[in-house]
Every structure is written in structure tokens, then in C-alpha cells.
């Protein structure tokens, strides 16, 4: 190829117009940036985003798939100029976000669907954000690798699964949930986690950096059993992989996800439209359906039959749901993250 002056000029012109273009277009746009989940679990948010984009002219809804941890780092760096508008948080990071002032108090009068929500969920939000969905931490296993499926939390320590158990780092809710649950069944508590560390270490587990990565490890057959989110297990099973989910005795851990307005959001009105959408029947029906099986937080939405293995479907199962005193856990979260390295660094 010979570089002539003309071809160079043409390229330069084309390049500069490409560079300049988005700035011109963006000027008249409205934008809502929402933290979302990664992979297939993002779809319900996508659906709601598309719906809002149809309803509101010039609106772009951007979904940022992320584990919420690095998002909080960015919000912190932005010092009050958050680049994001709304985010769903599981209970532990929700408490941290309230403490550090990253999210805003909810004004219930601005929500049309406020009364839709099962009233018991409201206190858990502590007045910040709307209860979006809930998910379960249970045990997932790879059918091809396991002869007798686990039925209780204690089964993780079964001889059969020796060296084939995975756990998630304590930087995630999944990891914290696993830790808290282990503490509970082995005589500890939220304030006394030492038994849990000892028991987990006994497992000689393979650690996953994040829940999604842990799920992938299970999918690839690197591990046979792992505490996992019901949603991730459901998505993997849907793909045709031999992944099964059990609600182990005495019960799976339920964690509520709260959708909140982030401090410094640019267009509060839009954020409220989004939160209202989250607690609408349409959205909840979709989120509860295959293959996501998110737990619903509103009244009157039926849980589909196929969701049975993944969600609490009988009153007994609802009663068995385990809760954790997250306030105690989040106080020491940094130490717990570091402790993981100290215990499990390989």
C-alpha cells in the first residue's frame, strides 16, 4: 500500500468526523445509567429499559453489568459526582451504601406502585430504595460428578465431595452468606465467625473470585458442589448444563436486592420512573419467570411452576428461609475480605 496525500486526507477527515459525531448527538439525549447484573440475568433490566425508552422520547437507558464492588470504588472516586443513577444492592452493600451516603432516601409519594409491594419488605430497605427482588443462596452441584446430591449445608463436608467444593470470596454477598451460614450451623454467629473460617478451611475449597466465576467453575466441572445463587444455577441449567440447585437444610439464605437512587443522580424523575417499573407487576412477572427465577417482592404475581426448584414455593419453605444479621457483618467487611486471603491464599 502506498500512502498518498489524498488517501491520507480522506482517512483523517473520516476519522475526525467519527470522533466528533457522538458529542453532537449526545447533547439532546436523556440518559439513565443503571448498574445491572452480568450475562443473562441482565435481561429483565434490559426489558424494563427498552420499555422506558419507548415511553420517554430521547431516553437512553444504559445498563452497566458489574459486581457492585467496583462501582462503589468509582462512585467514591467521583466524590459526589456519581456517574450512575441507580443501582441494585444486596443487603450487605446496601447497608454500606447507606452508611457512606452513596444512596438516597426514598420518597414513597413519588411511586405509583408503592402499595404493590409486600409490606414486610419495606423495613429491610431502611427507607432507601425499593425492594426489587430476592434471591436464594443454596447449594448447586454438577450432576455428572455427584452420586448423592447434597441435601443440607453440612453435606458440603461429605467425604464424597472431598476436594471438589467451591466457595466464593468474601468480597461478594455470596461469600459473606456462605460464611455466615457456616458459622450458624457450626456453633458460631455473625459476631463469632471463627468456627466458620475453620470449617471452610477444612474443605480445602477451590475459591471463585466472584459468583459468576464460581458458577463457571461448576459449569466446567472444576468443582462438583458450591454454595451458589439460585439464579446463576437456573441460567446454567437452562443452557443444557448438568447443574442442579437444592435448598439445603435448615434452609437457604434469602437476600433481598434493593434498587436505590444513587447520590448525585442527574435526573431524579427518571430514577423514580425506573424504580416504579421495578415494582410493577409486569417486571416482577418477567423476573420471576424462566430462566431467572428471581423472588418476587410484590403481591399477586404468581410464581411459575418451573421456578419451584429455585424459589421457596410452600409456606414451609418460606418459613425455613434463613436470614443473617448483616449489620454485624458489614462492620467488619474489609477485615473479612483480607481474612479470606490469609486463610485461602494458595
Amino acid at each position, binding site marked *: 500500500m502506498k500512502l498518498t496525500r489524498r488517501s491520507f486526507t480522506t482517512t483523517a477527515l473520516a476519522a475526525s468526523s467519527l470522533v466528533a459525531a*457522538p458529542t453532537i448527538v449526545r447533547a439532546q439525549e436523556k440518559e439513565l445509567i443503571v448498574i445491572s447484573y452480568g*450475562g443473562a440475568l441482565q435481561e429483565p433490566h434490559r426489558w424494563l429499559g427498552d420499555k422506558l425508552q419507548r415511553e420517554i422520547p430521547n431516553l437512553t437507558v444504559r445498563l452497566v*453489568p*458489574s459486581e457492585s464492588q467496583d*462501582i462503589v470504588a*468509582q462512585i467514591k*472516586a467521583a*466524590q459526589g459526582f456519581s456517574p450512575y443513577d441507580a443501582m441494585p444492592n444486596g443487603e450487605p452493600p446496601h447497608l454500606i451504601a447507606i452508611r457512606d451516603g452513596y444512596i438516597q432516601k426514598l420518597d414513597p409519594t413519588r411511586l405509583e406502585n408503592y402499595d404493590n409491594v409486600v409490606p414486610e419488605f419495606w423495613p429491610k430497605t431502611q427507607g432507601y430504595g425499593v425492594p426489587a427482588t430476592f434471591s436464594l443462596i443454596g447449594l448447586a452441584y454438577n450432576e455428572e460428578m455427584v452420586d448423592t446430591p447434597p441435601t443440607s449445608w453440612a453435606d458440603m463436608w461429605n467425604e464424597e465431595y472431598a476436594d471438589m467444593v467451591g466457595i466464593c470470596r468474601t468480597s461478594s454477598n455470596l461469600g459473606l452468606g456462605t460464611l455466615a451460614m457456616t458459622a450458624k450451623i457450626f456453633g458460631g454467629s455473625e459476631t463469632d465467625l471463627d468456627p466458620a473460617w475453620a470449617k471452610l478451611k477444612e474443605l480445602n475449597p477451590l475459591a471463585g473470585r466472584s459468583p459468576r466465576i464460581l458458577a463457571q467453575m461448576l459449569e466446567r466441572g472444576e468443582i462438583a458442589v458450591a454454595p451458589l445463587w439460585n439464579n446463576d444455577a437456573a441460567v446454567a441449567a437452562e*443452557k443444557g448444563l448438568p447443574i442442579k440447585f437444592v435448598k439445603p437444610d435448615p434452609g437457604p439464605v434469602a437476600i433481598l436486592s434493593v434498587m436505590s437512587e444513587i447520590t448525585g443522580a442527574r435526573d431524579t424523575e427518571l430514577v423514580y420512573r425506573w424504580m416504579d417499573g421495578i415494582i410493577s407487576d409486569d417486571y416482577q412477572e418477567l423476573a420471576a419467570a424462566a430462566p431467572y427465577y428471581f423472588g418476587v417482592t410484590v403481591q399477586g404475581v404468581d410464581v411459575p411452576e418451573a421456578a419451584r426448584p429455585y424459589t421457596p414455593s410452600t409456606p414451609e419453605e418460606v418459613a425455613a428461609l434463613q436470614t443473617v444479621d448483616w449489620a454485624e457483618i458489614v462492620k467488619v467487611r474489609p477485615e473479612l475480605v483480607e481474612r479470606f486471603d490469609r486463610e485461602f491464599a494458595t
Partner: protein
Amino acid sequence: MMDADVAPARGARGPALASVWADRLGFFVIWTLAGFALLLLIAPSLIVVMISFTETAYITFPPQGFTFEWYADLFSRQQIVESAVTSLRISLWSTTIALLLAVPAAFSLVRGRYPGKTFAGALIVAPQMIPGMVIGVALLFFGAYISFRQSDLMLVLGLTVFCLPFAVRLVMAQLQLLNPALEEASLSLGATKKRTFVQITLRQIVPAIVAGAAFVFIESFDNLTVALFTASPRARPLAVELYNLVQFDSSPMVAALSSLEILLAFVVMLVLGRTIGLERLAK
């Protein structure tokens, strides 16, 4: 000094038989390692491309069936397409800025005569010694300090800092090879200094500028370490998107996206090979 295995030359006699076999074995090992290195360079790309055509919804080897579904899936995802455009835009900016800074700096560092030139040279190539992550983190902190937020601009600046040394060094290397007599010849033939600069000096370092541009562009396009800390969440570059996909999504779509990046690399290499030759690129 006489070593055991270095036989002294005794007339026309060759090395001892044992040493012939040692030779064969030794070189067999050397060529085997070379072959393994070649395999290591090519196999991962080939496997990723193969996987991208599988019909299963998860990654499996050997791939089953043949489908373009994952490529279609890729282009139907607005977010991925947008991030590709973002990366393109960011890369063009950082390439332009890096070259505008690098070319004059290279002239000064090669031809200038002033005290402290060595130090100046060391300063300009210093970012090369700093891992991208540290540059990204430093910019993030610096931004927090002066209320300069993560944005396209911050990303462009970070990438420019990171890539500047490559561009400067490439242009400097070429300038050092330039024969100053060519410029004198041009002047003695009556050309103006501007004409001499444009037609002789600049024209001669065009290969270095093209190579520099290509490298800065590709590095900016692919960079994750700087981008992770400086990119605007609103317009995330492809590398960050891909990093998330690898972690969050186990579908073969990731393989499809990777295959396209591999294809892009080959196209760029073809262009570079045609314009300046790969042998020169190696240096």
C-alpha cells in the same frame, strides 16, 4: 584453556562420535522447544476461533456443529457495538495526541543539543516502566484530588501517557538512522527548509510514524489496565466490556468477540507488513 568437550583440531578428523550424537540430541531439543513455542503462539487463537462456531450454548471442546449464531448475537447487542465505537473513538484520539507529542519530542531528543538531554529522554520514556494499572490508579487518585472525573478524556489522557514512550522510541530509532546528508542535499538543490523538512525528513520517518500510530492505536484499543480505572461508565471501551463478559458470561459469544479481535489484529498486521515490512517492525 581446553575444555573437555572441545576437541582440539587434529588434522582432518571430525569431532568424536559421541559428540555427534550429543549434537543431534541437543539440536533435537532446541528445535522441539522452538516448535512448542510456535504452537503456543498459534494454538490459543485457533481454539478460540473454533469454539466461536459451536452450536452449544456453553463452551465445549471439540465444538459441536457449526453456526454463526454467536456472531449474530454479538452484533445484536447494542452495548457491545457501542463500546466498540467508543474504543475506536478513544483510540483515534489517543493516537493523534500521542503522535503530536511524540514526533517533535523525538526530534528534540535525537538532534537537540542541550544540557540534561539524557534526563529528558529518560523522563519521556519513563511511563513505559510503569504498569498500566499503576498509571490508571494514579490518574484516578489525581482526578479525585482535583475533581476530575472518570471520562473519555481521562481515559484518552491515561492511554496517551501509557503509549507515548512507544511512539517516541519508534520515531527516535528511525531518526537516528536518517542520513543527515539527505537534508543537506535537498538544501543544496535549492529546496526551502520547509520543503526539505516535509519532503525529505518527514517523508523518511513516515514508516516509524505509521508503525507508531498502529501500535498506539492497537494498544489503546486493547488496553484494559488503564481503562479499568479511568474509563467513563457511560461509554465503556470494548476491552472493559470484554473483561466483564469473560467474567460474567460463559457463552460462546465471548469467543466470537475474541475471534473478531484476532481478525482485526491480522488485518492491521497485513497493512503494516505491506507499508513498512514486518522485519522492520520486529526491531
